[in-house]
């Protein structure tokens, strides 16, 4: 067991005018995740703390928060990483409106998916076959959990209209555009271009903090652009 100092950003709109930081000294195991730590904190120190939680294993996308300034999944982050400094600052995701403590408003993020026709439009001539190579190409994009980290980690200012369109929507567009079963196909690339999504600045080295390592700069954007050029 080690002792750590957890500073948690608290905000309850029913009586707080601004967020503030609350500190808790906690005994934790290095093998614990930050999500475990938050659950222990709620169980043993302060039951009023609000944070989203579900799968514990990085597949549901519920528990994205900012940990020492970096947007990540609490359930995928081990206490061991902070064993040296023993200071763990947990805050809500940036670029999202805070609803309470670590809980942010996901509705805008999720709604922006609707812009890209986020479902397969089945080709009438689909015969029930596709190649494993085609599956492989789409698989990574299919891993997106809609956790919101790509939006939080992006460098678009909140006022910029492009901020309404998030990288996850681009991933969904990619996932559908290159599915051989899809009737829209390359039309989807035109759609995201017309929405201005392709101009979204993305650091070529960065993967926007994606826990699934979806490669926006190396795969998603260039392949959509190539499809446009090929018509």
């Amino acid at each position, binding site marked *: 067991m080690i002792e750590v100092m957890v500073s948690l950003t608290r905000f309850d709109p029913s009586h707080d005018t601004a967020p503030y930081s609350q500190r808790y000294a906690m005994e934790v195991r290095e093998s614990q995740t930050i999500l475990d730590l938050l659950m222990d904190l709620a*169980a*043993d120190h302060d039951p009023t703390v609000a944070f989203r939680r579900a799968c514990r294993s990085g597949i*549901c996308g519920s528990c994205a928060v900012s940990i020492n300034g970096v947007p990540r999944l609490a359930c995928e982050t081990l206490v061991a990483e902070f064993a040296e400094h023993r200071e763990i600052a947990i805050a809500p995701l940036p670029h999202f409106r805070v609803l309470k403590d670590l809980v942010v408003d996901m509705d805008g993020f999720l709604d922006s998916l609707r812009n890209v026709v986020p479902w397969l439009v089945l080709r009438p001539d689909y015969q029930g076959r596709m190649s494993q190579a085609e599956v492989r190409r789409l698989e990574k994009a299919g891993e997106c959990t809609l956790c919101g980290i790509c939006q939080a980690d992006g460098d678009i200012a909140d006022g910029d209209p492009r901020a309404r369109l998030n990288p996850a929507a681009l991933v969904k567009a990619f996932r559908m555009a290159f599915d051989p079963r899809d009737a829209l196909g390359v039309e989807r690339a035109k759609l995201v271009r017309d929405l201005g999504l392709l101009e979204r600045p993305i650091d070529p080295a960065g993967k926007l903090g994606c826990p699934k390592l979806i490669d926006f700069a190396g795969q998603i954007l260039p392949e959509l652009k190539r499809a446009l050029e090929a018509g």
Partner: protein
Amino acid sequence: MLTYDVLVVGAGLAGMRAALEASRTAQVAIISKVYPTRSHSGAAQGGINAPIGEDDSVESHMFDTVKGSDYLGDQDAIEVLITEAAEAIYELERWGMLFDRRPDGRIAQRPFGGAGFPRGCYAADLSGHAALHALYEQILRRSVRVYPEWMLLDLDVQDGVCRGAVAMDFQSGRLEQIRAKTVVLATGGYGRAFRKTTNDVVNNGDGMAIAYRNGATLSDMEFVQFHPTTLYGTNILISEGARGEGGYLLNNRGERFMARYAPKFMELAPRDMVSRCIMMEIKEGRGFENEYVWLDLRHLGEDLIRERLPQVHDLALRYNGVDAIKEPIPIQPGQHYSMGGIRCDVWGETAIRNLLVAGECANVSVHGANRLGGNSLLETLVFGKRAGRRAAEVAAGMDLPRTDGEPLRRVQAAIDSVMSGRAGDNPAHISRRIRDIMTDKVGVFREGGELEEAISELMNFKDRYAGIRLDRGSMAFNYQLSDYLELGFLLDLCEVIAKGALRRTESRGAHYRTDFPERDDRRWLVHTLARYSPDGPILEDGPVSITRYPPAARGY
């Protein structure tokens, strides 16, 4: 008051499938405790069974399922499940699910435990995630209204007829009464009753407990599935697909110990058996640190592991620092699934009129005493669709039920009296104790004396639960309140599970009594039915449907 033809509770695979079907003809809404894509269906890894391989057949899949159920599954329901399996898969495929493919481009299938053929259709080891997102896309396409982060608090049942529900909008903390012609519960399982579980933190048996309190019958609740391979430490699921692809189970002598217990099926014996075998190895000193055995994938090679088991590889590395390409994974059994649930027929209809159920919260019963890997996702699709269809049909033939605001007022009064200033036990601490009791005394191996102890401890905690009062806090995102309510659901269900386990003096499927180690068909080839009373569950026998396969010895 909100009004719908069909109200679906839960947005996992069963709930969304039901809503999609019902929305073809009815006005439908879904309420869900979490955003749909957060649902626990997404954590399923291995695959979805269907007998679509050349040499496979409906009969073979049926027989495997019946035998896997230790003959407790209802064969009429199993026939429906398997007969409609292929259609369920192709439907999902046309909705965009990214199944892995065979060289000829058709859907690939992998072997699972207790199955005579490879019949698990899969998307690497992210099958549940892929299916969940495919259904969510269809929900968006059909514009089915979803109320995310709404928690079911009670059903509106009057004179044996369901007329809607009362829910809490978690974002505001406001209570809402929803009036509906039919309600479909698809609320999943109760894994949080156990310390060692693969389940997420949301699975507290809400729907099961609420239906039970309102007069529905729970059945076969003592049958709790313990998955053989969960990560040592966190009990996060390690897919049966890992053994389906050829993984070995090894004890501390490096032996593939399954050879001694199931020489033919080896690691791919059914889950109940494999979990018991692992526990025996550990108990007899052939485990590691008296806690776990090894799941060895090294011989499968890096390419296969990265391609077909990427999530398994990630999970072991992240949580245990084990690279499965180079090292064996430490695993132990953990609670995974509820075979039992709300008793229903093959259309999802229950003892409460106009209340239907589907998925893990339901008991049709297609899994009997032990579920086969790959059959649960199938169940969600087949019976979710059926429940949705029947819910819409029933709704089409009736007027909106008469009700008033009384159900909401009743729930509001109960909440107000609980939130009157902190007093009594800390619910989180009771919750921890319950989970220990269930894991240690109502687990893989059970014994009469220990079950009696467990029951008396549970009853004690039930009394203490009644004395708990919570802070008068703000209502938005009040997890203190939801945790408290969930503990109440679990306490009711744990009592039914433990009392059913004590009553059933035999061993069958996942229910193993060390003091009654044999299956006893003369006395116990029956379902356990539980009905609510203020003094505890009334337990009775119910008949099992046996149409084709008479009970036989169950060797693997």
